[in-house]
Structures are given as structure tokens and as C-alpha cells.
């Protein structure tokens, strides 16, 4: 399970500064921030703009373009379910619906107990072992109802 520090703009500013001198550093910066704090607080926008000599609008534009970057904390576990064609061919659509019903959430939602955030993803490169998912960066293949139940139970344990 990933653990995050509470957002701290001072520390975040240091992270941004540590990338000084690297070409095109915005994405590496954002990844480092999200890895530490679990999300990107908008307080970092002027800091990054200053560091990269860009406008705040440009930084905001970059952050919001990419599916990965969040503006709030995720649940304790993030489950990324593959929605692409290979997984569809093995019944992923019905399986995803089932899982959402069990969890009472839609895509991008977090369960009430804060255990699981459900993310859609388009292809994990596990197409010969579909349906597939990433649970906190741990790949899981050949998913079925019972595997989903086990995954939920483990996440809530």
C-alpha cells in the first residue's frame, strides 16, 4: 500500500527545485510530487511556473491534461481496471459493472470506507492474460468474479 506525506508546500517547493536544470522537467516534477503527497495541490502551480519560467496557465494546462495527475488523495489502494479491447473480449465490461456494484462507486470513485479508488485504464500490455488490472502497481491477470472478491477483501483487510 502506498503511503503519502501530508501536503506541505515548503517540501513541495524543494522537490520542484531538485529538478532545476533538467530539460522539460514538468512531468518528472509532477510525478515526484504525486509520489510523495498522493496528489498535486494547486498551491504548487505558481512555484512551478516560477521554476520553469512558464505561465501559471501553462502549468495548470499541463497538470490537467494528463489522466494520472490528481487534485485529491486517492483511497488506500488504487485499482486500475483495463477497459481496452483485449480485456473486453474476455468479459471485462460485465466484470467491471459487477465490481462497481459491489463497491458502490463509478469510475474514478473511492469507496466510502476509503479502501479502494477505481480507475479506468486503456491497456496494461497484459492482453494475453485478460481481463487484467493493476492493484497499486502490482499486475493481476485472468480476472474473474472470485479474483475480484479476493482483491476487494484484501484491500479492505
Amino acid at each position, binding site marked *: 500500500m502506498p503511503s503519502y506525506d501530508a501536503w506541505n508546500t515548503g517540501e513541495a517547493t524543494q522537490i520542484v527545485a531538485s529538478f532545476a536544470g533538467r530539460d522539460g522537467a514538468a512531468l518528472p516534477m509532477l510525478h515526484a510530487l504525486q509520489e510523495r503527497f498522493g496528489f498535486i495541490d494547486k498551491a504548487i502551480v505558481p512555484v512551478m511556473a516560477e521554476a520553469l519560467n512558464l505561465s501559471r496557465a501553462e502549468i495548470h494546462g499541463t497538470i490537467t491534461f494528463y489522466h494520472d495527475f490528481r487534485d485529491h488523495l486517492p483511497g488506500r489502494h488504487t485499482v486500475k481496471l483495463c477497459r481496452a479491447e*483485449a480485456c473486453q*473480449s*474476455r468479459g471485462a465490461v460485465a466484470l467491471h459493472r459487477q465490481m462497481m456494484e459491489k463497491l458502490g462507486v463509478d469510475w474514478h470513485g473511492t469507496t466510502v470506507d476509503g479502501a479502494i479508488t477505481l480507475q479506468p485504464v*486503456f491497456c496494461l500490455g497484459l492482453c*494475453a492474460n485478460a481481463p487484467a488490472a493493476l492493484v497499486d502497481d502490482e499486475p493481476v491477470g485472468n480476472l474473474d468474479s472470485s479474483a475480484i472478491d479476493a482483491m476487494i477483501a484484501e484491500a479492505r483487510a
Partner: protein
Amino acid sequence: MITIYVPCDAAAIACGANKVAAALLAKLVPDISIVRTGSRGLFWLEPMIEVATPEGRIAYGPVKPGDIDSLIAADFLNGGDHLLRLGKPEEIPYLARQTRLTFERCGVVDPLSITDYRAHGGYAGLEAAIAMEGEAITEMVKASGLRGRGGAGFPTGIKWNTVRLAQADQKYIVCNADEGDSGTFADRMVMEGDPFMLIEGMTIAGLAVGATKGYIYIRSEYPHAFKTMSRAIEIATREGALGPSVFGCGRAFTLEARLGAGAYICGEETSLLESLEGRRGVVRAKPPLPALEGLFGLPTAVNNVLSLATVPYVLAHGAQAYADYGMGRSRGTLCIQLGGNIKHGGLIEVAFGMTLREAIEDFGGGTASGRPIRAVQVGGPLGAYWPESLFDTPLDYEAFAAKAGLVGHGGIVVFDDTVDLAAQARFAFEFCAAESCGKCTPCRIGAVRGVETMDKIIAGTDVDKNMTLVSDLCQTMTDASLCAMGGLTPIPVVSAMTHFPGDFVPAPLRIAAE
């Protein structure tokens, strides 16, 4: 001490390879040592473990942690007989029938051992390249007939020559490892199973065009590939294979792996460059070509993982050795990735020209569900849906294009007879709407209108009128989109409508028709 090879490929881990490795260690330490390798690409057999015996490696699979006791009882450490025994891996028909050039080492070597890499022929290509002028390297790649494996099939040597002839103080090599197409995993396997080959290929590219810096842009959906690639770059730098003077030759080449952030469009080369520069992954208009004005406005060779990974073979064995494989203008080997509803999914590297049917029937063995195959989609989410009547088409760029399909990155996704092609056509639009960069109107708005219109067709509202509308919309997207995302989204839609018209009639009529 007996060596056991256990894959650390993400697909093998998805099948439980880490648990198997842990169980082996728990039962057999200190009698064994475990070497983690890439995957051989026989994914229905994963986790497939291999034991080093005097007669060579003996494979067992698919192994579950619970099988270890019975394997020990069967003396598997000496190649003993067991229900899961597969024999020598290279003699398994699925592998024996392939021509593995790019994937020669994948699943065999420890991906992070540069010694292992050298022992299996690694760096022979770079050593040859170091003794050559940039022009000679470029000519050799051109003569091999190697074409871009990312999907467009553009001759790699010609692209390199443009970059080589461009005048600039700084040039770049960018590896497009944003393998976003559904049904593809060959790039991932290379990065997780044989990363030094990609590093070597990029270094050769740097020497050929006069670039001293390279970037590998890896999608964030591949955390394992990113980790392995980053470690391999560190090791190569430490060993002098990367740095201010590559193997002491006096020419510099350094590499950096960069992580994407979940945007399919960043597989489009200009969008990828924008993303590397730290901006929104919005497509650039071409011209200027990236070869002339690419990363940070400087000449840049942008190549796919497989294209770059194949270069060391060409340099080590000669252009002709590579060009001898293949058919027509498609030279060398194609790395087919078989996935979806298929019994024997995996990586199949063969010379261009094998038919689709051979791939899905002879190699794939039919569907995993046991039901009849109804459709296959070749070439990712922008590839055509084809019925059985087209299965005898050879896997070759031109042969596919002639039938309004595309080989793309070589991914084949198989569907059984439960598939609803109207739903798949709707999904093609939905995917485009979710992943469009938003720069051009046909793609940004067209995709949304496509979903709405498909919904009407599926609901049985004015079907004929709406089918005409979808055809018209597809024509507009094909003609007027800025890049392949909007321009090719009509391919899955139109192919589904053309080859499976029965799925587009209103549901009550469909029942009546059956």
C-alpha cells in the same frame, strides 16, 4: 547449487510468478539460486519456470505455488517428469516455429546483467558501429529494409538520414515507448526482458545521426518496464556503455527514461515531444518534421522500441541477413502479439508474410472460451475488425492496407461469437473522445458525435439515417483530422459496419433475423 529461471515480466507476475519465486526459495534454499528473466512470451504457460540441467534448460508451467511440493517429489531439479513438464523451451512447437531475431534473448537472460547480455551476442552491433561513419551506419539500416515498427512502417534508415544531414549543435534520439495500443505488449517485453538491446540500438542511432542525448518515453501503465529500463541505464552508464565516451570511442551518448502520465495520444510522435518538453500532449502540425525540428526544436529521430531494438541485429549480422526475411516491401520479422479471447496468447516473431489465420489458428489454437472466432481486430484500437473471410491475408503492411486494414504494431485481438460489433464501433468513438488531444475539431467533436449517433443506432432510432450520418462523419474525420488518432478512428467503425452489418440493425429485427 541449481539455477532456476523465473520470469519477472509483468504478465508473468500477473499470473503469480513472484509468489512462485518466493515459494521456491522458502522450500529449497540453499540448494537453488533463482535468476529472474524476461518472458519467452508463451503467456498461457506463465508462470513458466526453467531449471538448468546438464542437458540444458527444462521448462515447467504454468506453475502455481501449490505445485512446488509435487515438483520436488518428481525431482524437477534434475529435469524429472511431471504433469507440468514442458521439456526444452526452445523445442516447444510455439517457439520452435518462430524466427527470433529481436526476441532472441528475451526470457533467456537476466535483463539486468550486462555480462549475460554480452555472452549472448550483445554489444556486437555497437562495436561494429563504433568503427563506422554515421553515413555507413545509416546506409546499412536503409539496406536492411527495416521499417518503423510503431505502426506507420516508415523506413528507419531514411528517417535517420534526414536527421544526420540536418545541421545543429544538438540532436536527439527519442524512443517512443508509449505502447498504448490494446493488444500489444512487445515493447513492454523488450524493456522488461532485454533492456540493454534497446540501449544499444539507441546508442547506434546516436552514432549514426550525430545525436549525443536520448530519451525513452515510457507510459505510466508500465511501471515495471520503467523500473527495469531505468536500472539498465544506470548499469550501462556505470559500465561505460553510455556516457561522455561510449566504450572509450570518444563519442558521447547519454540516456534518460521518462515516465508518461496516462495519455494515449502521447504515442503520436509530435504529442510525445510536447510531453517530453513538459507541456500538454497536444499534437503539432507537420511539417516541420521532427527529424528537422523535433525535441526542443532540434533535429530528432523518433523511433519505436522494436525498431531501435532491431538495429543491433542489423549491425551485428549485416543488412542482408535481416533483409533475407520477409515479403515484398516488408522486410525482416514482424513481432505479432496475440491476445484477447485466445487459447495460446503470446509473442510470435516470424518473417513478414504469415497469414492471419496461421497466427490465430495454428499458433493461437482458437478462442480461450472454446466458442467460434467471429472477429479479430489487428493493429490496436485504430485497427480494423475483420471477419473470418479475410483471415488468409498475409501479415504485411501493403497486403493489409489493400484491404482497408493496418498491421500497426502487430497486435491481434481475438473475439468469439458473443461480440457485438455495434458496441465495438461505439467504443472506438468513446475511446477517441476520451483520448483526443482536442486540437482539431474532427477528432475532438467528431468522436463525441460518433458516440451519440452510435447510441441512437443501437437504440434502433432512425437506423438508416444515422448509419449514413456515421459514414459521413467517418469520412470527415479521415479527411480532416490532424493526426492518426482522429484520422484512423473511422477504421474500426467502418470495418465493423462493412463486415458485420447484421449487428447494426435494431435489436428486435436482429432477433427476427436469427
